């Protein structure tokens, strides 16, 4: 099935597209909501109350979901290999070879994302009505949330890298605005700033990766005879594949070849192997590595930032400073999965490079374990969930890294449901406990808050990987595929056992996941209420909150239906089948028997049970003394892990201090050296001018004055001659005559 479909895509040339002129409405509607609330929200809220604000906020997102459903229906009606809806609004810019359309596209993958984003967003917007009811700048919250939905949809639906980056940065902006929503608290404001700047590190890598890919498609960097590396456009080999593409020879008709930022055009020229583009890219080198590996790693740096993977994970736990619905929507269900989506979207590209795949999977696995270990010891319920998110994102990257793209995407979907449930439950709990987030001050909430408790428990089962809850199917599929993937490379070096190693790391992390999730469940809901600060006992949240919890928890269970594995039913899981046209990458896995697969599923379930049992024994009702004793015994190790391995402190001491110090140095250099030189030049000019002035005054003018003075003196002297006495004049005349005679005699 799988292979026939891909083979068909390879033979038929470009992907057929279907016009859907209404697609722009999906992102546009939330934008309208955002603009209305941002510009007029304050006034509307004053005059008509908060009702109108959230009607606009929720309404636009809900409408957008409806439009997405219409698109889904249209897509459903098409044959699988035709499922590609396109809506080009206008050409945003063209300069040289760079041409970017404001265009939206839906294929099965982005369709899944668009539906999930709009659906979960709508639910969380409803949740926010109850949660943010006391907030004075209610309008601002909804404006930001709508802006976020707009950006996320742009990211998902944009048909080219630039539009994706547009959404990519847009969600970063909204994340910044919403983390720093309560900006009067400098710490929260700083958390927002940290998120944005850390993301920018990732963006830097992403952008460079895009540039490299763009130009690699149309030429190559080659050593010129003078030893310099120079970019040379399309060479003879390329001309051959262009000819082939034009239909001369055995080529593929109508496939545009050359630099492009458009995903579909990129896909067409890479997936249609007859174009030769894939081979050309594979053969190209850069910095001694295969260029595809470099591109893949650079693009993944962007994903590391956005999806909080090592070592750029530091912003996500701090992002919990934002309101809880934000944590649920942005920092769990949607935005942070953007990196996973990006890798899945570019599956045909990543699959070409075993180095890129290995890198993605390995970083994912390390992050999964690293974050899970921190999750063990956190007391803040939102921090536990934050680290759990980081860890789960690691699992998704294992999936898309080893080539199980559909499984990664599936885990993204199931995670969106169960993590949104968990976060919203925590929000419900935090609201009930008067904004207390420390689990040591909770406990016993199961009785007063039954709905929150049961939904939380359901989501715990889902994330821990128990059969019949969705997380089991997605996580198991990922780990199974990791185990059977034997072709990964680490920075160009083949490592046949890397897949198995990643599987091992993943299994350990999965055990940890189960443990810390149930730990949080027991600490929060079992035993006695430990929060004595308030007289009022916690009570269940209002309907707008609990309804959403139930809806999402149901989703977390039902999502299992679309991922029941092949080994159980004999045909491919529904989601895998649905996503096939969007995931044309060909990845080879080792063949293993069904029995082996069952065995691995058993292992998966048992590690979940182990984690659960251990957490139950240690934390149920808060009676066991073991955790406290263990803590005493391993105090030092505990301190290191509790402080998140001091990664923040290390960054603070190196990167932050370093750049601020360098900035000071530059500023000093500018002020005293460069400007000093300028002022020195000015000073020299002035000294020269003074000197010049002095010369003028004393020498030039002096000479003039000397002449004048001499004339004057001469006049004064001569005046004495003018005595008026005739004798004097006669003596003078006589002296003159004698002198002339004498001179005359001398000259002769």
């Amino acid at each position, binding site marked *: 099935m799988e292979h026939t479909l891909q083979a068909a895509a390879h033979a038929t040339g470009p992907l057929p597209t279907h016009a859907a002129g209404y697609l722009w409405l999906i992102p546009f509607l939330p934008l309208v909501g955002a603009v209305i609330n*941002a510009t007029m929200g304050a006034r509307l809220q004053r005059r008509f109350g908060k009702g109108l604000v959230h009607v606009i906020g929720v309404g636009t997102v809900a409408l957008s979901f409806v439009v997405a459903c219409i698109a889904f229906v249209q897509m459903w009606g098409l044959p699988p290999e035709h499922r590609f809806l396109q809506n080009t609004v*206008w*050409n*945003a*810019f*063209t*300069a*040289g*070879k*760079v041409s970017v359309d*404001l265009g939206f596209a839906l294929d099965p993958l982005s369709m899944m994302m668009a539906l999930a984003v709009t659906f979960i967003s709508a639910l969380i917007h409803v949740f926010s009505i109850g949660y943010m009811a006391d907030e004075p700048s209610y309008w601002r919250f909804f404006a930001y949330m709508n802006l976020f939905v707009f950006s996320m949809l742009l990211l998902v639906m944009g048909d080219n890298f*630039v539009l994706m*980056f*547009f959404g990519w*940065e*847009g969600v970063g*902006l909204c994340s*910044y605005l919403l983390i*720093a929503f309560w*900006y*009067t*608290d*400098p710490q929260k*404001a*700083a958390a927002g*700033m940290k998120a*944005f*700047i850390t993301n*920018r*590190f990732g*963006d*830097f890598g992403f*952008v*460079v990766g*895009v*540039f*490299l890919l*763009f*130009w690699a498609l149309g*030429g190559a*960097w080659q050593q010129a005879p003078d030893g310099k*590396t120079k*970019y040379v*456009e399309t060479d003879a080999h390329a001309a051959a594949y262009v000819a082939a593409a034009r239909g001369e020879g055995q080529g593929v008709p109508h496939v545009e070849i050359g630099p492009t930022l458009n995903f579909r055009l990129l896909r067409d020229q890479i997936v249609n192997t007859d174009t030769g583009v894939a081979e050309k890219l594979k053969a190209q080198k850069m910095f001694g590595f295969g260029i595809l590996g470099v591109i893949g790693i650079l693009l993944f740096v962007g994903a590391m930032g956005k999806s909080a993977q090592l070592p750029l994970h530091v912003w996500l736990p701090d992002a919990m400073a934002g309101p809880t619905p934000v944590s649920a929507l942005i920092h769990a269900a949607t935005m942070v999965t953007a990196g996973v989506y990006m890798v899945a979207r570019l599956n045909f590209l990543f699959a070409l490079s075993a180095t890129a795949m290995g890198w993605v999977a390995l970083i994912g696995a390390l992050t999964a374990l690293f974050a899970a270990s921190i999750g063990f010891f956190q007391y803040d319920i939102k921090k536990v969930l934050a680290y759990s998110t980081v860890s789960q994102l690691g699992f998704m990257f294992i999936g898309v890294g080893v080539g199980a793209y559909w499984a990664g995407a599936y885990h993204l979907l199931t995670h969106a449901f169960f993590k949104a449930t968990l976060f919203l439950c925590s929000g419900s709990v935090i609201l009930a406990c008067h904004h207390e987030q420390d689990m040591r001050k909770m406990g016993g909430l199961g009785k007063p808050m039954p709905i929150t408790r049961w939904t939380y428990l359901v989501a715990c089962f889902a994330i821990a990987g128990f059969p019949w809850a969705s997380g089991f199917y997605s996580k198991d599929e990922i780990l199974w595929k990791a185990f059977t993937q034997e072709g990964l490379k680490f920075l160009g070096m083949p490592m046949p056992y890397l897949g198995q190693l990643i599987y091992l790391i993943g299994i350990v992390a999965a055990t940890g996941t189960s443990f810390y999730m149930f730990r949080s469940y027991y600490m929060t809901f079992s035993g006695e209420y430990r929060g004595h600060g308030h007289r009022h006992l916690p009570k269940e949240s209002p309907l707008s909150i609990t309804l959403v919890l139930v809806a999402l928890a149901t989703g977390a269970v039902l999502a299992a239906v679309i991922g029941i594995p092949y080994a159980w039913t004999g045909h491919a899981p529904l989601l895998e089948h649905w996503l096939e046209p969007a995931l044309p990458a060909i990845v080879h896995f080792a063949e293993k028997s069904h029995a082996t697969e069952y065995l691995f599923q058993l292992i998966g379930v048992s590690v979940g049970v182990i984690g659960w049992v251990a957490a139950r024994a240690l934390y149920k009702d808060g009676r066991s003394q073991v955790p406290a004793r263990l803590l005493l015994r391993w105090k030092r190790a505990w301190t290191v892990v509790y402080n998140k391995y001091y990664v923040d402190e290390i960054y603070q001491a190196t990167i932050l201090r370093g*750049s*601020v110090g*360098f*900035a*000071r140095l*530059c*500023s000093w250099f*500018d002020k005293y050296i*460069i*400007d000093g*030189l*300028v002022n020195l030049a*000015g000073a020299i000019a002035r000294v020269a001018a003074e000197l010049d002035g002095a010369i003028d005054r004393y020498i030039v003018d002096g000479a003039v004055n000397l002449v004048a003075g001499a004339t004057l003196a001469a006049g004064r002297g001569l005046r004495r001659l003018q005595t008026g006495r005739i004798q004097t004049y006669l003596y003078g005349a006589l002296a003159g005559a004698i002198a002339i005679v004498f001179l005359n005699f001398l000259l002769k």
Partner: protein
Amino acid sequence: MISQQNVLSWATFFPLIGLAVILILMATRYFLGFSRRALDELARSTGLIASGLSFFCSVLAWVWFDPSQSGVQLVQHFTWIKGFNIEYLVGVDGLSISMVLLTGLISFVAFVASMPWWSSAKYARMAGMVEHGHDDGHHPQHFSVRMVPGYMCMLLLLQTGMMGTFVALDMFLFYVFWEVMLLPMYFLIGIWGGPRKEYAAIKFFLYTLVGSVLMLLAIIGIYYNSHAAPLADGSMSAGHTFNLIELAKQGQEGVFAGSPAVLGFAFSKIAFIALFIGFAIKIPMFPFHTWLPDAHVEAPTPVSVILAGILLKMGPYGILRFNYPLLPDATQWAAWVVALFGVINIVYAAFVCLAQSDLKKLIAYSSVSHMGFTLLGMSAMTPTGISGAVFNMFSHGIISPMLFLIAGVIYDRAHHREIGRFGGLAQALPEYAGITGLAFFASLGLPGMCGFVSEFLVLVGSFPVFLGFTIISATAVIITAAYYLWAIHRAFLGKLNPVYKDYPDLVWRERLVLYPLGAIAIVLGFYPQAVLGVINPALTLLVSGLRPM
């Protein structure tokens, strides 16, 4: 009256007519003796109307300009000083039409920002727009009420100089306009500026004059190496020509590459260096940039707006108008050095920004950093890179005036600009915080606003040519985000400093200039092709002769 032949001249000389009217008004006052206040108001209205008419003409020129045709359009051409082959030749191509539009717009914005009108009583009192008998360091009088007719005259003269520089296609005419620009700028900073205005004004003047002298030498050298060309009346010029279009043709034919050497150095290289330094001072390019922060910090807000919005663009414009077409061989020879300086501008200035505590100085250095993108983009000489470079000139011309207006907003209220002394301003001035956020994010290259498009095009365009430089430049996206967000953090977020509790939020005199610019930044973020489509053909033509890419 206004036709396609003379629209550019109208755009250039409407401000000069306004200046004449103000002078007449001043003389009339001497005879009729109406009040000083009435004269001030009349001078303001005249300035606004004259600048508005010039803006209108520049829009008209934009509308009449046909982007599908390459070459110079809307030409007015007649012989001026026949004996020296000097002509009056104005016209625009895709490169200059965008700058003409920008000049009209930003000058008009500067005029609106120079009016004390449309402000509340409380704000006017705070800003020092109300007569209070004394004008000293503690109670400075607002620039908008100080020696108004003189101020308006200077601003109008400045606008004529700028517009003329962008439309002139005769080297001599160009130089005349270029110099006309200097003097009013000197007085505007030196009379209406801040505490260290004399230092800043002289520094600006001398620095730019050094550039002008080098430029003049190069212009004379080019003139004497040029061949004869036809004049407006159809006759051939005597031996040489000042006509830039003809010079460009001769440059493409290699006339200047083959000119006799000067002191053993190739003429075209010497001419390139002299012209380049002359223009680089205006950009300003490292290490000739230190006049800019001083000039900006001391200049009144509208003058900063013009300085950042238009004057800085003359540097790259000059390079693209003179160096590129006239001296193609030297341009290629120097390309990587230009790129290197571009990278230094981008990264170095960004780091300097990070260490600034004065808001206006931070913005001034960010201008230096952003203009570096233009240098990098044009040195790559790919169609994408050069389009990005020119679009960057335009988008920086929209965003940086916004930033300086924003610095002016808070300075008018608090009379200082120390970022660290603010704090929590978002609570007292929410609307101001919002528009500041918009402008800062536009400047740090957030997609959806024009700054992103220009940076993206520059980086993608120079990537294949200068791989390492481009990657280093791209790190600026991180530093830029850091210094802007940190500035927002220190000034707007956190606890509100009670001193600023009762500050009035934006008044209409500020809204009138900030909102249109913000709207343009957003529109061009979604549809940059509106400008790119016009400038592209000319630029593609320009680089097609330079580097085969």
